[in-house]
């Protein structure tokens, strides 16, 4: 009896404490976690997106990803190789120091130093010149019409602050010791960081001195990672947090049934696609040791025709995907409307594969991550079932991303015959598709490093060379379309879909989701409290 009493008291003690609720604080739980705060160390969507609440670049992107003025009020191409940025006046960093041309030149220079993953965003031949306290010029050797496309995440630091904190050099992601200052941040943005425990919890508060008019009504933001999908959902449903990113796709029903929460979605820029090894002369992971069917355009097109993306959308993605006809989102390419997918058509697929001489089919292993993209493994399994109908027996080898990327990339000599990959163009531009995914490469990765199937048509490289320096946007888009047409006609790489970004949001909170999946607090609003509401 004593035990029973003790237990009851213990249990009662636990149950008596309700979770606290604070009205002006926005609580966000994410799958990803925030580690270093050095703005130039990691070029990774989650980190630079969150840091974008604290720091700013010369340009910004609005919620529809249109480029708008940031710390520069305007910019122009004085000549095709000379950019001029007019800087905003009366801007102060969170520590109170004023923002000037020196900070811009310091930050751009810093972003090109070893240890910075951001240096890919600055042309290697660029030089920076201070014209006056609020004017900076960038001088190039050859034209780069899209130089500023990804400068919205090229954040400007305070030169004086960096010097004071020993931050003159970017912090190496893999340095032997994290400088304590790599866990500090000082920007000009709408929020500043109050406390930061890497991977555990970060607290932000509103910057009252921000130069722009804030569209939000948030005083504090608490960001916590919650990896387990069901816990993240439970945190939202129970009111422990206000927003969850992402909402797990297998928990959508549960969220729909909850009056307290709802689902918000947007099509992400990331495109999911299939690479077929057309580089090797044999099928390394398959039953054909003396030839490689993927070298044959007819086989690749047969595979394209045999994949039913509508079924993947309906049954695997539960409606939350956008079938893709290109390797780039239609939001990022003006001529996307000229392209349609090769239709799902088993008869054509069977005829093509028969014409190619593989009427009896063959066997191949498909590599697939199981923790990288939405339902990645399930997509591979579905593709396997679909290709079985045209006699291609696909064995799915699904592993965690760390192992997947080790195997399929240049690190292991592209040790894969078929694989699933997703790509968001960091530059927000189609040229990247050619230079990273679809251009030719050798077995060591010289060329298009992430062309994981080694598909090669030299015409694409030739076009990419022209696109790189073409300053007329109409001509440039036409050239891009020509290159995409080749990939499409040859089914060099097979696009599947853009996945959707799904957020779970508490009933009264308003959010706008950016298609680049960057989490911006100033696009969110907490419920308005009436005047007599208690504080």
């Amino acid at each position: 009896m004593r035990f029973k009493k003790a237990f009851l008291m213990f249990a009662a003690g636990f149950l008596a404490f309700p979770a606290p609720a604070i009205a002006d604080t926005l609580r966000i739980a994410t799958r990803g976690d925030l580690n270093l705060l050095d703005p130039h160390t990691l070029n990774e969507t989650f980190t630079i997106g969150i840091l974008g609440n604290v720091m700013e670049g010369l340009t910004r992107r609005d919620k529809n990803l249109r480029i708008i003025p940031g710390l520069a009020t305007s910019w122009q191409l004085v000549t095709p190789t000379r950019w001029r940025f007019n800087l905003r006046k009366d801007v102060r960093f969170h520590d109170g120091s004023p923002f000037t041309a020196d900070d811009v030149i310091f930050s751009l220079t810093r972003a090109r130093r070893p240890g910075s993953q951001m240096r890919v965003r600055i042309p290697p031949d660029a030089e920076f010149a201070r014209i006056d306290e609020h004017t900076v010029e960038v001088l190039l050797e050859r034209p780069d019409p899209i130089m500023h496309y990804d400068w919205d995440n090229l954040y400007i630091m305070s030169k004086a602050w960096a010097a004071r904190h020993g931050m003159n050099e970017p912090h190496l992601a893999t340095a032997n010791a994290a400088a304590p200052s790599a866990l500090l941040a000082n920007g000009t943005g709408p929020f500043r960081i109050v406390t930061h425990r890497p991977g555990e919890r970060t607290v932000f508060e509103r910057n009252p001195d921000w130069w722009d008019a804030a569209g939000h009504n948030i005083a504090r933001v608490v960001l916590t990672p919650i990896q387990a999908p069901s816990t993240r959902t439970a945190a939202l449903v129970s009111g422990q947090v206000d927003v969850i990113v992402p909402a797990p796709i297998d928990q959508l029903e549960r969220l729909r049934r909850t009056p307290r929460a709802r689902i918000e979605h947007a099509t992400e820029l990331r495109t999911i696609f299939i690479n077929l090894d057309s580089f090797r002369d044999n099928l390394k992971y398959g039953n054909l040791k003396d030839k490689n069917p993927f070298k044959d355009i007819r086989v690749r097109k047969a595979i394209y025709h045999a994949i039913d993306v509508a079924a993947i959308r309906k049954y695997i993605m539960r409606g939350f995907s956008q079938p893709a006809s290109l390797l780039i989102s239609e939001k990022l390419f003006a001529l996307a409307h000229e392209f349609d997918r090769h239709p799902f058509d088993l008869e054509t697929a069977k005829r093509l594969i028969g014409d190619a001489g593989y009427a009896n089919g063959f066997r191949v292993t498909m590599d697939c991550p199981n923790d990288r993209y939405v339902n990645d493994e399930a997509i591979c399994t579905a593709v396997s079932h679909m290709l079985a109908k045209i006699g291609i027996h696909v064995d799915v080898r699904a592993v965690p991303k760390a192992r997947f990327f080790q195997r399929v990339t240049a690190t292991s000599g592209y040790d894969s015959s078929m694989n699933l990959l997703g790509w968001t163009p960091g530059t927000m531009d189609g040229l990247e598709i050619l230079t990273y995914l679809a251009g030719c490469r050798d077995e060591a990765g010289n060329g298009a490093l992430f062309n994981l199937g080694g598909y090669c048509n030299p015409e694409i490289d030739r076009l990419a060379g022209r696109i790189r320096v073409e300053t007329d946007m109409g001509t440039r888009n036409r050239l891009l379309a020509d290159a995409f047409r080749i990939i499409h006609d040859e089914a060099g790489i097979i696009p599947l879909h853009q996945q959707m970004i799904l957020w779970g949001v508490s009933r009264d909170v308003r959010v706008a989701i950016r298609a680049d999946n960057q989490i911006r607090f100033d696009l969110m609003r907490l419920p308005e409290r009436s005047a007599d509401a208690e504080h």
Partner: protein
Amino acid sequence: MMRLALSALLLRTTALLMIVFVAFLSSAEVGDPVHQLVSQHASQSEREQLHHKLGLDQPVHERFTAYIVRIVNGDLGHSLKTGEPVSAMLRRALPVSLDLCIAATCLALLLALPLGVLATTSGTGPTYLPGAILAATASFPVFVLAILAMAVFSTGLGILPPSGTGRMDTIAGWTTGLLSKSGLAALALPALVAAIPLSALFAGVLRMELETIQKKFYITAAHARGLPRRYILRNHALANAWPALIPVITIQAANLMAFAIVTETTFQRPGLGWLIFKAMENADGPVLVGAILLAGLTFWLFGLLADLLLLLADPRLRVANGRPRGTEVP
């Protein structure tokens, strides 16, 4: 005595070395950390430089020797993901795990004692229930219990948070959430979920032990002397059943301390198990090996604790040259 202690020490140190070596081998198997450390636009030569810089191109045995030399000097290395010293990460994780370990073990014991005793004395009909509960709870996987518990207490009743640690206070160097309301509230579900299968195990052991003891002559003799049933249960049966429970409890407590991976990741408690999981996910070798080393140490310490507790619980073991003495008749 000295020789005995020395050989025990040697044995346990060897065991630790073996654990570290296995952890090392497995850290090489979890994948390539480099892909997650560089920009998607990084060139292959940059990737290879990083490989070299991290020493990933060295053979495993060389890395292992270098690592042992470093830990002997008190340096556990740095996380590949964050650059933080591994020792600092372990120091942060340890109190979180310790809270869960203490709360869940205590809760499991509180549940196990009545359950074990009732299951022993029960027969058929309604008294069969404790045995049935035992069998049922023992076979529930932790993550199912976790989801169930969240559904009831977090999303259903809305009285307990489904994740986090709540407030942690530091008192005399000991950081714990056991002293704050929000800390206790955050601990309630994970502790309950971890305790349920454990209580089944403890109760099972207790029941088996009690059933054996009840067939002993001294129990029969006690009954013959007309002692009350409850007195016999407490002073004769339970007192003699305790020692059998101690090794089970300590091993399970160590397990909770070091490897509560499912509980900690489900409830987002950044303890040791969570750290191990994250390290595997990120192919973060130094953190993985450091955490497993600490887990090994935990088992080592809890083993020691078990020995001490046994000495306290079983007076026969305290007798030098240990011929058992006491009431037991063979």
